[in-house]
Protein backbone atom coordinates (compact mmCIF):
# COMPACT_ATOMS: atom_id res chain seq x y z
CA UNK A 1 0.00 0.00 0.00
CA UNK A 2 2.65 2.55 -0.93
CA UNK A 3 -0.20 4.06 -3.00
CA UNK A 4 -1.21 6.14 0.04
CA UNK A 5 1.92 8.20 -0.32
CA UNK A 6 1.06 9.07 -3.92
CA UNK A 7 -2.60 9.72 -3.09
CA UNK A 8 -1.41 12.08 -0.39
CA UNK A 9 0.64 13.98 -2.95
CA UNK A 10 -2.49 14.50 -5.06
CA UNK A 11 -4.37 16.05 -2.14
CA UNK A 12 -1.41 18.16 -1.16
CA UNK A 13 -1.08 19.45 -4.73
CA UNK A 14 -4.82 20.23 -4.72
CA UNK A 15 -4.48 22.22 -1.49
CA UNK A 16 -1.58 24.09 -3.02
CA UNK A 17 -3.63 24.94 -6.09
CA UNK A 18 -6.55 26.08 -3.94
CA UNK A 19 -4.17 28.36 -2.07
CA UNK A 20 -2.55 29.77 -5.19
CA UNK A 21 -5.78 30.38 -7.06
CA UNK A 22 -7.77 31.52 -4.02
CA UNK A 23 -10.36 28.75 -4.31
CA UNK A 24 -12.79 28.17 -1.44
CA UNK A 25 -13.52 24.57 -2.41
CA UNK A 26 -12.12 21.97 -4.75
CA UNK A 27 -14.96 20.21 -6.57
CA UNK A 28 -13.23 17.78 -8.85
CA UNK A 29 -9.77 16.33 -9.43
CA UNK A 30 -9.06 14.32 -12.57
CA UNK A 31 -6.20 11.90 -12.16
CA UNK A 32 -4.32 9.82 -14.70
CA UNK A 33 -2.86 6.48 -13.66
CA UNK A 34 -0.05 5.66 -16.06
CA UNK A 35 -0.01 2.00 -17.02
CA UNK A 36 3.71 1.54 -16.28
CA UNK A 37 3.22 2.10 -12.55
CA UNK A 38 0.51 -0.60 -12.31
CA UNK A 39 -1.61 1.13 -9.70
CA UNK A 40 -5.01 -0.38 -9.05
CA UNK A 41 -7.89 1.99 -9.56
CA UNK A 42 -9.84 0.77 -6.52
CA UNK A 43 -6.98 0.90 -4.05
CA UNK A 44 -6.07 4.36 -5.22
CA UNK A 45 -9.61 5.68 -5.07
CA UNK A 46 -10.06 4.25 -1.58
CA UNK A 47 -6.86 5.94 -0.40
CA UNK A 48 -7.91 9.26 -1.93
CA UNK A 49 -11.35 9.15 -0.27
CA UNK A 50 -10.01 8.17 3.13
CA UNK A 51 -7.38 10.88 3.01
CA UNK A 52 -9.82 13.54 1.78
CA UNK A 53 -11.87 13.11 4.98
CA UNK A 54 -9.08 14.55 7.10
CA UNK A 55 -7.90 17.23 4.69
CA UNK A 56 -10.16 20.01 5.96
CA UNK A 57 -13.11 21.82 4.47
CA UNK A 58 -11.73 22.70 1.03
CA UNK A 59 -11.68 19.03 0.07
CA UNK A 60 -14.86 17.97 1.89
CA UNK A 61 -16.97 17.49 -1.23
CA UNK A 62 -14.30 16.71 -3.81
CA UNK A 63 -15.03 14.16 -6.55
CA UNK A 64 -12.25 12.07 -8.03
CA UNK A 65 -12.19 11.10 -11.69
CA UNK A 66 -9.58 8.45 -12.17
CA UNK A 67 -8.56 7.47 -15.68
CA UNK A 68 -6.15 4.84 -16.86
CA UNK A 69 -3.47 6.12 -19.22
CA UNK A 70 -2.04 3.63 -21.72
CA UNK A 71 1.72 3.55 -21.83
CA UNK A 72 3.99 4.22 -24.78
CA UNK A 73 7.69 3.56 -24.82
CA UNK A 74 9.94 4.56 -27.69
CA UNK A 75 13.43 3.48 -28.57
CA UNK A 76 15.94 6.29 -29.14
CA UNK A 77 18.05 4.07 -31.35
CA UNK A 78 15.54 2.42 -33.71
CA UNK A 79 12.41 4.52 -33.04
CA UNK A 80 10.28 1.44 -32.41
CA UNK A 81 7.35 2.01 -30.05
CA UNK A 82 5.74 -0.45 -27.65
CA UNK A 83 3.66 -0.59 -24.50
CA UNK A 84 3.99 -1.93 -20.97
CA UNK A 85 1.56 -4.71 -21.90
CA UNK A 86 4.17 -6.07 -24.23
CA UNK A 87 7.09 -5.36 -21.90
CA UNK A 88 5.38 -7.14 -19.02
CA UNK A 89 5.77 -10.54 -20.67
CA UNK A 90 9.54 -10.35 -20.32
CA UNK A 91 9.51 -9.30 -16.66
CA UNK A 92 9.70 -11.38 -13.50
CA UNK A 93 7.33 -10.61 -10.60
CA UNK A 94 10.06 -8.83 -8.64
CA UNK A 95 10.98 -6.74 -11.64
CA UNK A 96 7.41 -5.68 -12.32
CA UNK A 97 7.03 -4.81 -8.65
CA UNK A 98 10.20 -2.70 -8.72
CA UNK A 99 8.71 -0.78 -11.67
CA UNK A 100 5.52 -0.32 -9.61
CA UNK A 101 7.60 1.48 -6.98
CA UNK A 102 9.82 3.47 -9.39
CA UNK A 103 8.67 3.40 -13.03
CA UNK A 104 12.16 4.30 -14.37
CA UNK A 105 13.31 0.90 -13.15
CA UNK A 106 11.98 -0.15 -16.57
CA UNK A 107 15.37 0.97 -17.94
CA UNK A 108 17.04 -1.49 -15.60
CA UNK A 109 14.97 -4.58 -16.26
CA UNK A 110 13.66 -4.08 -19.82
CA UNK A 111 15.02 -3.40 -23.31
CA UNK A 112 13.66 -2.32 -26.69
CA UNK A 113 11.88 -5.43 -28.02
CA UNK A 114 13.17 -4.71 -31.52
CA UNK A 115 16.84 -3.76 -31.11
CA UNK A 116 17.53 -4.57 -27.41
CA UNK A 117 18.66 -1.04 -26.58
CA UNK A 118 18.33 0.28 -23.00
CA UNK A 119 18.16 3.79 -24.46
CA UNK A 120 14.43 4.36 -24.76
CA UNK A 121 11.98 6.95 -23.52
CA UNK A 122 8.76 6.75 -21.55
CA UNK A 123 6.59 8.82 -23.90
CA UNK A 124 3.29 8.27 -22.12
CA UNK A 125 1.72 6.48 -19.19
CA UNK A 126 4.55 6.70 -16.68
CA UNK A 127 2.74 7.11 -13.37
CA UNK A 128 0.34 9.17 -11.32
CA UNK A 129 -0.42 12.65 -12.62
CA UNK A 130 -3.11 15.28 -12.32
CA UNK A 131 -4.87 16.24 -15.51
CA UNK A 132 -7.16 18.87 -14.00
CA UNK A 133 -8.34 20.45 -10.77
CA UNK A 134 -11.69 22.25 -10.66
CA UNK A 135 -12.87 24.46 -7.85
CA UNK A 136 -14.72 27.63 -7.03
Amino acid at each position, binding site marked *: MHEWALAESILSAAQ*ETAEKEHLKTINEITILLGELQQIEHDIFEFALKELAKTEGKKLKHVKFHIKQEKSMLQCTRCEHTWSFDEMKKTLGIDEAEAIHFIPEIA*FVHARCPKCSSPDFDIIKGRGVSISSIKGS
Partner: protein
Amino acid sequence: MEPRISIINKRLQNVKRVVVVASGKGGVGKSLLSSGLALHLEKKGCRVGLLDLDFYGPSSHIILGVHDVFPQEDKGLIPPRVSGISFMSLVFFTHDKPAPFRGGDITNVILELLAITQWGSLDFLIIDMPPGIGDETLDVLRFIKKSEFLVVTTSSKVAYGAVEKLLVILKEQKIPLLGVVENMKQGSSSFVETEVVGRDIRYLGGILFDPHLEDAIGNTDSLSKTTFMKELVVCFDRIFF
Protein backbone atom coordinates in the same frame (compact mmCIF):
# COMPACT_ATOMS: atom_id res chain seq x y z
CA MET B 1 0.52 18.80 -13.22
CA GLU B 2 3.22 17.17 -11.15
CA PRO B 3 1.77 16.20 -7.74
CA ARG B 4 4.95 14.81 -6.19
CA ILE B 5 6.79 18.09 -5.65
CA SER B 6 4.24 19.40 -3.19
CA ILE B 7 4.48 16.44 -0.79
CA ILE B 8 8.27 16.52 -0.36
CA ASN B 9 8.30 19.17 2.37
CA LYS B 10 5.81 17.13 4.36
CA ARG B 11 7.93 13.98 4.01
CA LEU B 12 10.92 15.85 5.41
CA GLN B 13 9.07 17.95 7.97
CA ASN B 14 10.32 15.90 10.93
CA VAL B 15 13.85 15.73 9.60
CA LYS B 16 15.85 18.35 11.46
CA ARG B 17 18.85 18.64 9.17
CA VAL B 18 19.65 17.44 5.66
CA VAL B 19 23.39 17.08 5.01
CA VAL B 20 24.27 16.69 1.33
CA VAL B 21 27.70 15.11 0.87
CA ALA B 22 28.78 16.34 -2.53
CA SER B 23 31.74 17.05 -4.80
CA GLY B 24 32.35 18.20 -8.32
CA LYS B 25 34.67 15.19 -8.58
CA GLY B 26 34.20 11.43 -8.42
CA GLY B 27 36.24 9.04 -6.31
CA VAL B 28 37.12 11.58 -3.62
CA GLY B 29 35.40 9.69 -0.80
CA LYS B 30 31.84 11.07 -0.74
CA SER B 31 30.37 7.63 -0.11
CA LEU B 32 32.86 6.58 2.55
CA LEU B 33 32.37 9.92 4.31
CA SER B 34 28.55 9.69 4.05
CA SER B 35 28.44 6.23 5.59
CA GLY B 36 31.10 7.12 8.14
CA LEU B 37 29.26 10.26 9.16
CA ALA B 38 25.95 8.41 9.42
CA LEU B 39 27.48 5.70 11.60
CA HIS B 40 29.18 8.24 13.83
CA LEU B 41 26.06 10.35 14.34
CA GLU B 42 24.06 7.25 15.15
CA LYS B 43 26.62 6.25 17.79
CA LYS B 44 26.33 9.71 19.30
CA GLY B 45 22.63 8.99 19.84
CA CYS B 46 21.15 10.83 16.87
CA ARG B 47 18.36 9.47 14.69
CA VAL B 48 19.97 9.18 11.26
CA GLY B 49 18.85 8.46 7.70
CA LEU B 50 21.08 7.80 4.71
CA LEU B 51 19.91 8.25 1.12
CA ASP B 52 22.11 7.11 -1.77
CA LEU B 53 21.46 9.30 -4.82
CA ASP B 54 24.34 7.94 -6.92
CA PHE B 55 22.32 5.80 -9.31
CA TYR B 56 25.12 4.89 -11.73
CA GLY B 57 27.51 3.78 -9.02
CA PRO B 58 25.55 3.24 -5.80
CA SER B 59 28.09 2.50 -3.06
CA SER B 60 26.50 3.00 0.34
CA HIS B 61 25.05 -0.52 0.43
CA ILE B 62 28.51 -1.97 -0.33
CA ILE B 63 30.20 0.10 2.38
CA LEU B 64 27.56 -0.73 5.01
CA GLY B 65 27.34 -4.38 3.96
CA VAL B 66 23.59 -4.23 3.35
CA HIS B 67 22.02 -7.62 2.64
CA ASP B 68 18.56 -9.15 2.61
CA VAL B 69 16.58 -6.13 3.68
CA PHE B 70 13.82 -4.25 1.86
CA PRO B 71 11.74 -1.19 2.70
CA GLN B 72 8.47 -1.89 4.48
CA GLU B 73 5.32 -0.88 2.61
CA ASP B 74 3.15 1.23 4.88
CA LYS B 75 1.55 4.36 3.47
CA GLY B 76 4.74 4.70 1.47
CA LEU B 77 8.08 3.00 1.96
CA ILE B 78 9.74 2.84 5.36
CA PRO B 79 13.53 2.49 4.94
CA PRO B 80 15.03 -0.58 6.61
CA ARG B 81 17.36 -0.11 9.55
CA VAL B 82 21.00 -0.92 8.83
CA SER B 83 23.36 -0.62 11.81
CA GLY B 84 20.76 1.70 13.35
CA ILE B 85 20.54 3.90 10.23
CA SER B 86 17.36 4.31 8.14
CA PHE B 87 18.75 3.41 4.74
CA MET B 88 17.29 4.10 1.30
CA SER B 89 18.87 3.26 -2.03
CA LEU B 90 17.74 2.46 -5.54
CA VAL B 91 19.54 -0.91 -5.28
CA PHE B 92 16.43 -2.25 -3.53
CA PHE B 93 14.73 -1.95 -6.93
CA THR B 94 17.58 -2.39 -9.41
CA HIS B 95 18.79 -5.58 -7.73
CA ASP B 96 22.23 -4.04 -8.29
CA LYS B 97 21.93 -4.15 -12.09
CA PRO B 98 23.02 -1.16 -14.26
CA ALA B 99 20.68 1.83 -14.33
CA PRO B 100 21.26 3.58 -17.69
CA PHE B 101 19.18 6.67 -16.94
CA ARG B 102 19.09 9.92 -18.86
CA GLY B 103 18.81 13.21 -17.00
CA GLY B 104 15.01 13.41 -17.08
CA ASP B 105 14.81 9.89 -15.66
CA ILE B 106 17.10 10.89 -12.80
CA THR B 107 14.75 13.72 -11.89
CA ASN B 108 11.76 11.38 -11.95
CA VAL B 109 13.50 8.81 -9.75
CA ILE B 110 14.53 11.46 -7.22
CA LEU B 111 10.98 12.87 -7.14
CA GLU B 112 9.50 9.41 -6.69
CA LEU B 113 11.92 8.44 -3.91
CA LEU B 114 11.33 11.70 -2.07
CA ALA B 115 7.54 11.41 -2.46
CA ILE B 116 7.14 7.85 -1.21
CA THR B 117 9.86 7.45 1.42
CA GLN B 118 8.57 7.82 4.98
CA TRP B 119 11.63 8.86 6.95
CA GLY B 120 9.74 9.59 10.16
CA SER B 121 11.57 11.71 12.75
CA LEU B 122 15.28 12.16 12.13
CA ASP B 123 17.97 14.40 13.51
CA PHE B 124 20.02 14.00 10.33
CA LEU B 125 19.35 12.84 6.80
CA ILE B 126 22.67 12.30 5.02
CA ILE B 127 22.57 12.28 1.21
CA ASP B 128 25.37 10.51 -0.65
CA MET B 129 25.62 12.34 -3.98
CA PRO B 130 27.08 11.43 -7.34
CA PRO B 131 29.81 13.72 -8.71
CA GLY B 132 29.15 16.82 -10.79
CA ILE B 133 26.69 19.66 -11.00
CA GLY B 134 24.02 17.98 -13.10
CA ASP B 135 20.46 16.81 -12.58
CA GLU B 136 20.99 15.29 -9.13
CA THR B 137 22.58 18.44 -7.74
CA LEU B 138 20.09 20.78 -9.40
CA ASP B 139 17.20 18.62 -8.17
CA VAL B 140 18.43 18.50 -4.58
CA LEU B 141 18.71 22.30 -4.68
CA ARG B 142 15.25 22.54 -6.16
CA PHE B 143 13.33 19.99 -4.09
CA ILE B 144 15.06 19.94 -0.69
CA LYS B 145 15.04 23.48 0.59
CA LYS B 146 16.76 22.68 3.87
CA SER B 147 19.87 21.15 2.28
CA GLU B 148 23.24 21.96 3.82
CA PHE B 149 26.22 20.99 1.69
CA LEU B 150 29.36 19.23 2.87
CA VAL B 151 31.88 19.26 0.05
CA VAL B 152 34.63 16.68 -0.38
CA THR B 153 37.85 17.03 -2.37
CA THR B 154 41.29 15.44 -2.51
CA SER B 155 44.54 17.39 -2.57
CA SER B 156 44.92 16.98 -6.34
CA LYS B 157 44.81 19.97 -8.69
CA VAL B 158 42.62 17.96 -11.07
CA ALA B 159 40.13 17.06 -8.35
CA TYR B 160 40.02 20.57 -6.92
CA GLY B 161 39.48 21.99 -10.42
CA ALA B 162 36.15 20.15 -10.54
CA VAL B 163 35.25 20.75 -6.89
CA GLU B 164 35.81 24.48 -7.26
CA LYS B 165 33.01 24.60 -9.85
CA LEU B 166 30.53 23.17 -7.35
CA LEU B 167 31.74 25.62 -4.69
CA VAL B 168 31.27 28.54 -7.09
CA ILE B 169 27.66 27.51 -7.80
CA LEU B 170 26.82 26.92 -4.12
CA LYS B 171 28.30 30.25 -3.01
CA GLU B 172 26.65 32.12 -5.87
CA GLN B 173 23.26 30.57 -5.05
CA LYS B 174 23.75 31.27 -1.33
CA ILE B 175 23.23 27.62 -0.38
CA PRO B 176 24.20 26.73 3.22
CA LEU B 177 27.72 25.28 2.99
CA LEU B 178 29.07 23.48 6.03
CA GLY B 179 32.59 23.41 4.66
CA VAL B 180 35.15 21.42 2.69
CA VAL B 181 36.88 18.19 3.77
CA GLU B 182 40.22 17.33 2.15
CA ASN B 183 40.22 13.55 1.96
CA MET B 184 42.96 11.01 1.21
CA LYS B 185 45.71 13.48 2.07
CA GLN B 186 49.18 12.12 1.50
CA GLY B 187 51.55 15.07 1.32
CA SER B 188 51.53 18.25 3.40
CA SER B 189 50.54 20.73 0.70
CA SER B 190 48.21 23.45 1.94
CA PHE B 191 47.01 24.28 -1.59
CA VAL B 192 43.40 23.21 -0.97
CA GLU B 193 43.13 24.91 2.41
CA THR B 194 44.44 28.18 0.96
CA GLU B 195 42.02 28.03 -1.97
CA VAL B 196 39.01 27.20 0.20
CA VAL B 197 39.71 29.81 2.84
CA GLY B 198 40.39 32.31 0.05
CA ARG B 199 36.80 31.77 -1.08
CA ASP B 200 35.58 32.47 2.42
CA ILE B 201 34.48 28.87 2.93
CA ARG B 202 35.16 26.83 6.04
CA TYR B 203 38.02 24.31 5.69
CA LEU B 204 37.03 21.40 7.93
CA GLY B 205 40.39 19.66 7.90
CA GLY B 206 42.18 16.84 6.19
CA ILE B 207 41.73 13.08 6.45
CA LEU B 208 44.82 11.01 5.67
CA PHE B 209 44.89 8.21 3.14
CA ASP B 210 44.17 5.10 5.21
CA PRO B 211 45.72 1.97 3.66
CA HIS B 212 43.50 -0.27 5.82
CA LEU B 213 40.20 1.33 4.88
CA GLU B 214 39.52 -0.97 1.92
CA ASP B 215 39.59 -4.04 4.19
CA ALA B 216 36.88 -2.53 6.41
CA ILE B 217 34.42 -1.96 3.56
CA GLY B 218 31.26 -4.01 4.06
CA ASN B 219 31.65 -4.34 7.81
CA THR B 220 30.47 -1.46 9.97
CA ASP B 221 32.26 -2.70 13.10
CA SER B 222 35.62 -2.76 11.33
CA LEU B 223 34.84 0.56 9.70
CA SER B 224 34.24 2.20 13.08
CA LYS B 225 37.72 1.20 14.21
CA THR B 226 39.69 2.63 11.26
CA THR B 227 41.94 5.68 11.54
CA PHE B 228 39.75 7.06 8.74
CA MET B 229 36.83 7.15 11.20
CA LYS B 230 38.93 8.73 13.96
CA GLU B 231 39.94 11.55 11.68
CA LEU B 232 36.42 11.93 10.29
CA VAL B 233 35.09 12.39 13.80
CA VAL B 234 37.59 15.21 14.41
CA CYS B 235 36.51 17.01 11.22
CA PHE B 236 32.79 16.66 11.83
CA ASP B 237 32.37 17.02 15.58
CA ARG B 238 33.43 20.62 15.30
CA ILE B 239 30.47 21.38 13.06
CA PHE B 240 27.78 19.13 14.50
CA PHE B 241 28.41 19.18 18.26
